[in-house]
């Protein structure tokens, strides 16, 4: 087994490393062809990497991306494609922002307020994902279709609720519109980082806890095992006494609950209200990050950091005269090539393992072998 592990480390390195290298080469080529200098691009990326503010912003972005990736990965483990993470977190962020900002909350102790906000967000996310799960188990409707539709419904629902007549209030003198600002007791203070004007989101610990919980669920619990087994082979799971419907329901609820958390670090750490410009689209970034990180709790963390860093250094590229779009190209190429690379490595690994088993058995048997 030692040799197998050593090789799997190398193999595992090969896929992401190869994909990244390939993406870097493609981007360099595009820059050269379009008359820009890849050297300038790398230089400005390094400049932004060494700026504490960009680092903090990158980590803060990564926190949201990571939560999104975990939400997506819970579905992926069961071969469920929860595209609705985006709608789930936006609705959850909006409703929990309204709750956290509500006047009656101000009399409550800070810890209770934040806890209630977090729980509310998880509930909203779970309920929204639960609709898709219910439709799947009762009517057999593909969760891909329903979650896409629920995203659109969430958008319109949020737009309807984000209105001065309902859960929002107009920001005086601004064209923005937002929920009632969350007062200090409902916020989660950031962690000041020397040299940076941005503080690290306090809810970074929430993301870490979710990551640990995710690892524990799939590495140590019966529920996680059953979800994983269902994802690997539904028929085998059924034969083993796993209720597939129950697994669909539970994994979607879990995925939705984690999705509900995605907006909270930003909401409680920086925005302090849900406004028109609350960042959308994190759910889709989560899909890319989960793919890149191979649904692995640590892999996704690195993928989220990479994504966050790329997103936050695009302004530096812009200033250096390198089109910021190169970041999007890079991200796209990484996702595409990593999917291909993982599949190639997977096939190679299966073959290698079968060969190893064959060889190990051949050695075991060899004494009785007589040349013919």
């Amino acid at each position, binding site marked *: 087994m030692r040799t197998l592990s050593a090789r799997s480390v190398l193999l595992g390195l090969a896929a*992401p*490393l190869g994909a990244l290298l390939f993406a870097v080469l493609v981007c360099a080529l595009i820059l050269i062809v379009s008359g820009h200098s*890849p050297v300038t691009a*790398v230089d400005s990326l390094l400049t932004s990497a060494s700026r504490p503010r960009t680092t903090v912003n990158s980590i*803060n972005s990564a926190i949201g991306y990571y939560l999104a990736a975990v939400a997506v990965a819970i579905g992926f483990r069961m071969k469920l494609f929860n595209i609705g993470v985006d709608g789930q977190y936006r609705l959850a962020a909006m409703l929990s922002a309204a709750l956290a900002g509500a006047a009656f909350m101000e009399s409550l102790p800070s810890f209770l307020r934040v806890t209630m906000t977090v729980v509310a967000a998880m509930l909203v996310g779970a309920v929204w994902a639960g609709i898709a799960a219910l439709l799947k188990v009762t009517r057999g409707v593909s969760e891909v279709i329903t979650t896409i539709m629920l995203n659109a419904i969430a958008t319109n629902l949020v*737009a309807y609720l984000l209105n001065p007549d309902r859960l929002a209030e107009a920001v005086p003198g601004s064209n923005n519109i937002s929920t009632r600002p969350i007062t200090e007791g409902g916020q989660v203070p950031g962690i000041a980082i020397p040299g940076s*004007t941005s503080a690290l989101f306090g809810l970074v610990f929430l993301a870490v806890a979710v990551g640990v919980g995710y690892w524990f669920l799939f590495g140590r619990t019966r529920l996680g095992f059953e979800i994983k087994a269902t994802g690997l082979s539904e028929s085998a799971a059924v034969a083993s006494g796993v209720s597939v419907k129950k697994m669909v329901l539970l994994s979607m609820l879990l995925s939705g609950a984690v999705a509900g958390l995605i907006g909270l670090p930003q909401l409680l750490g*920086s925005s302090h209200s849900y406004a028109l410009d609350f960042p959308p689209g994190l759910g889709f970034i989560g899909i890319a990050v989960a793919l890149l990180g191979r649904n692995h709790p*640590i892999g996704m963390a690195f993928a989220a950091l990479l994504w966050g860093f790329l*997103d936050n250094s695009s302004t530096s590229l812009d200033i250096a005269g390198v089109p910021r779009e190169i970041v999007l190209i890079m991200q796209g190429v990484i996702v595409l090539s990593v999917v291909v690379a993982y599949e190639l490595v997977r096939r190679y690994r299966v073959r290698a393992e079968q060969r190893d088993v064959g060889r190990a058995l051949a050695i075991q048997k060899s004494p009785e072998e007589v040349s013919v």
Partner: protein
Amino acid sequence: MRRMRGVRLAAGLFALGIGLASCASDTQPGGDGGTSGAPAPSTVKVGLAYDIGGRGDQSFNDSAARGLDKAKSEFGVEVTELEAAQGETDAQKEDRLRQLAESGHNVIIAVGFAYEKALSAAAADYPEAKFAIIDSAAPEAANVANLTFAEHEGSFLVGVVAGLKSKTGNVGFIGGVNTPLIQKFEVGFEQGVKAVKPDATVQVKYLTQPPDFTGFNDPAKGTTAANGMLDAGADVIYPAAGGSGAGAFEAAKAKGAMGIGVDSDQYNLPALANVKDVIITSMVKNVDVAVYDFIKAVKDGQFKSGLQVYDLASGGVSFATSGGKIDDIVPQVEEYKEKIVSGEIQVKDTK
């Protein structure tokens, strides 16, 4: 074995870092470095941060770009343009403004109300730089000018045009995205139509709901919405929908109806040359004027902080007459303009 995967990925990323670093090692000279130093007060270096869409959106951002271009060619100032990305956080917007300030820009313009929070944080740390924000009365600071527009007043006037020109007594308003800003267009327009034709029907349709901002840049949606309105009897369409307006004009052209441009004098936009015949007037929002004025003011040492409303009275918003399609009613429209400027007519800006 699964435990290994994360480690593997980590190592992969680490190795990438090394790769990047080794590429970079031969790039030390040339970079303009981190030392920004205090800008010489006499030189003006302009930084402009666009909203999503950036230069080339045929609308709001382009209008700001025109003002910038004019200032650049007239004063020869150095300019840097940066663009926002979809799904940004305030921190990322703030970072953009800070990077402009750090790299020696002393005139910084934030296009769009989304920059409000970012600007409030960034402006405080760079007191010598002069900032401007378009479309937002906040934040209030000694080095921030808030440039806002009375879109509702301009929209009132094109509403008057629509009311006078419509034969069916049925007109349509298409909003790009349902935000308070676009609602100002709607409210003013409707009031203008009703001022000349109290029993007229005003159909209202918003293409998307936030945070889906594609309504500003999806001509197909504009066509669909306009067709619906035209089928329901409208003969004048006012699309306050950025790039989606082109689609609405296509629909109007196909059905022989009229359209009203927005933000720029769209009759004269090269990108809309094939539908210019249907554009009878435009609600011109002179973001370019505001941008140009602001740069000029700072350059001349005339910077003024606080709210500056570009309204009918100041010429910040107006109606266009290019194409000569409303020559017959210009006097009537001018009459209403006078009444608004004099305060005789109060145009509402919220529903």
